[in-house]
């Protein structure tokens, strides 16, 4: 009898814990109740500018009056530049300097949303996994060279493209594939790519070499193996390809770039259902229309486009 009683007591405790559910948790950035009563995309008057949109959705921001942006740590060039700043968590480069391609894009988007950069922006270092972990996010959006993929779209909401990216092949001088001009010449090569990048699908679907691809935690491992001669080439996005041949691999060459069936692009990732997607899209559209995005490209990625296409 005593045993039965203690079992029931335990079960009762568990059920009680169940009832303590906080009913307010679980609303993930739902429709804000702004003073104007307007909601973002379904209101009678769609906002005309990014700033209007941001104002209309002031409640949707993670932290009121501030734009919270997540990005990877370390912050790699050429996406972020300017060097480290003491006292900051970020390594390699400091995002709040607004330098580098992604840095400049964020600075510009911030301004168009009506915030002042960098005072009204908080940067949050994020592991790649955290970008798309389920549940409420502690950032407004994240950008770290994340490519749009339809499967990914189910877990997060994506903005429009802020960079149309092509994949490229990096090798070393003297490698048998250094002078390749066609994909067929890569058939016997051992190629590597960092994990989580679309570079891997280029190897598997486009190049289709006979040897299994090597997949690394990050670019560092791939670069190491390339230098040691363990792999013949690395597939990586074009700007990063130029960066590593310029800086990290003295004998490195960019062999060429690949054309994809559908243009791959980098986009910001938001929590599903976030009304801020539209605001940022408006900002990006403005930047494309008035040429600002091209200026940013020329400033930070100049020289990162000239590579022959491998066919």
């Amino acid at each position, binding site marked *: 009898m005593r045993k*039965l009683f203690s079992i029931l007591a335990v*079960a009762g405790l568990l059920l009680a814990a169940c009832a303590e559910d906080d009913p307010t948790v679980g609303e993930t950035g739902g429709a804000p109740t702004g003073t104007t009563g307007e909601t973002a995309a379904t209101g009678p008057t769609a906002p005309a500018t990014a700033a209007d949109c941001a104002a209309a959705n002031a409640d949707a921001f993670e932290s009121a009056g501030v734009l919270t942006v997540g990005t990877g740590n370390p912050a790699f060039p050429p996406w972020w530049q300017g060097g480290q700043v003491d006292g900051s968590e970020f390594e390699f480069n400091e995002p709040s300097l607004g330098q580098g391609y992604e840095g400049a894009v964020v600075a510009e988007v911030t301004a168009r949303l009506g915030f002042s950069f960098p005072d009204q922006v908080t940067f949050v270092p994020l592991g790649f996994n955290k970008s798309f972990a389920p549940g409420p996010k502690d950032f407004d959006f994240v950008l770290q060279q994340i490519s749009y993929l339809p499967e990914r779209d189910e877990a997060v909401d994506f903005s429009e493209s802020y960079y149309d990216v092509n994949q490229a092949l990096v090798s070393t001088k003297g490698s048998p594939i250094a002078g390749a001009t066609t994909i067929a010449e890569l058939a016997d090569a051992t190629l590597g790519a960092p994990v989580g990048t679309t570079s891997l699908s280029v190897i598997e679907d486009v190049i289709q070499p006979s040897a299994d691809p090597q*997949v690394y935690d990050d670019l560092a491992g791939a670069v190491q*193996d390339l230098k040691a001669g363990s792999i013949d080439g690395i597939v990586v996005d074009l700007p990063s390809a130029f960066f590593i041949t310029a800086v990290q691999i003295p004998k490195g060459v960019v062999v060429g770039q690949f054309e994809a069936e559908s243009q791959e692009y980098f986009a910001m990732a938001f929590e599903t259902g976030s009304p801020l997607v539209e605001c940022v899209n408006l900002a990006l559209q403005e930047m494309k229309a008035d040429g600002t995005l091209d200026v940013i490209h020329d400033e930070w990625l100049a020289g990162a486009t000239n590579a022959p296409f491998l066919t």
Partner: protein
Amino acid sequence: MSGPPPDVYPYQPGDPRVPEGDRGSRILAPLRAEGARGVAIAIISSVVVFTAIVVVVVNSSGWPLIKESFFDPEVFAEAFPKILEKFWRNVFIFIVAELLVLVVAMIVAILRSLTGPVFFPLRVMAAAYTDLFRAIPTILVIALLGFGAPALQIKGVPDSDVFWAIVALVLVYSAYVAEVYRAGIESVHPSQVASARALGLSRRKTLRFVVLPQAVRRVIPPLLNDFIGLQKDSALIAFLGYVEGLRQAQIIQFENFDFTPYVALALIYIVITIPQARFVDWLVARDRRRRQVGAAL
């Protein structure tokens, strides 16, 4: 008088010991001994507890999100076969590594247990080896060997990720397993050694026929522990770029922004680990049953 000593204390219900001859597991046997009422209570309490847990989890506010991100059937269907295919690479690595570890660790343990001043340098080297490789994180050993050795570009030095990962795992795990063996060796009663030496057996034969057979039998459960750890650590070869089970799961995870592939991998690990644990339980029980009275205790 012959025959085993009488069981002086007759069995009572509730007694943690089990009547001789009942060869059931430790968990189930006392239950059987309690009779039908005990079984009924056990079933009811299990149902209540597990139902309560499930109810709490499923009704929590975050559950639908978790279900989508961790238990997505479509992603599972895509991920499982691909991960399983790459998982065979892990199997190859940890089986080869474990066989080598069992041998290398035994050698190290024996070197450490040698007595006599002439063996001092061997003892010291063996001790230094176990200290060093238990200290250095496994991933570092893999990185140093897997990236460093090929980078030296010395002729004859293999370039294969699999080769260096196995070498690294063997070096690290032999250090741990050597200590397990050593504990087993030291747990053999010194009178056993005295009895064997008294018969005129050499030190080597004493070790071989009397000490090691007893020592190894005693440490089979902790050996399995380390082997299971090795099976997980086989994933570290991914650091070198080699695509094995966990890396494959990660690739699919990043393609889909979904964690379900890891659940698929976890399932694979569970399916292979549980039989190993039961097998060792059976081995130990069989050995005890053969040798002792009251083995079910």
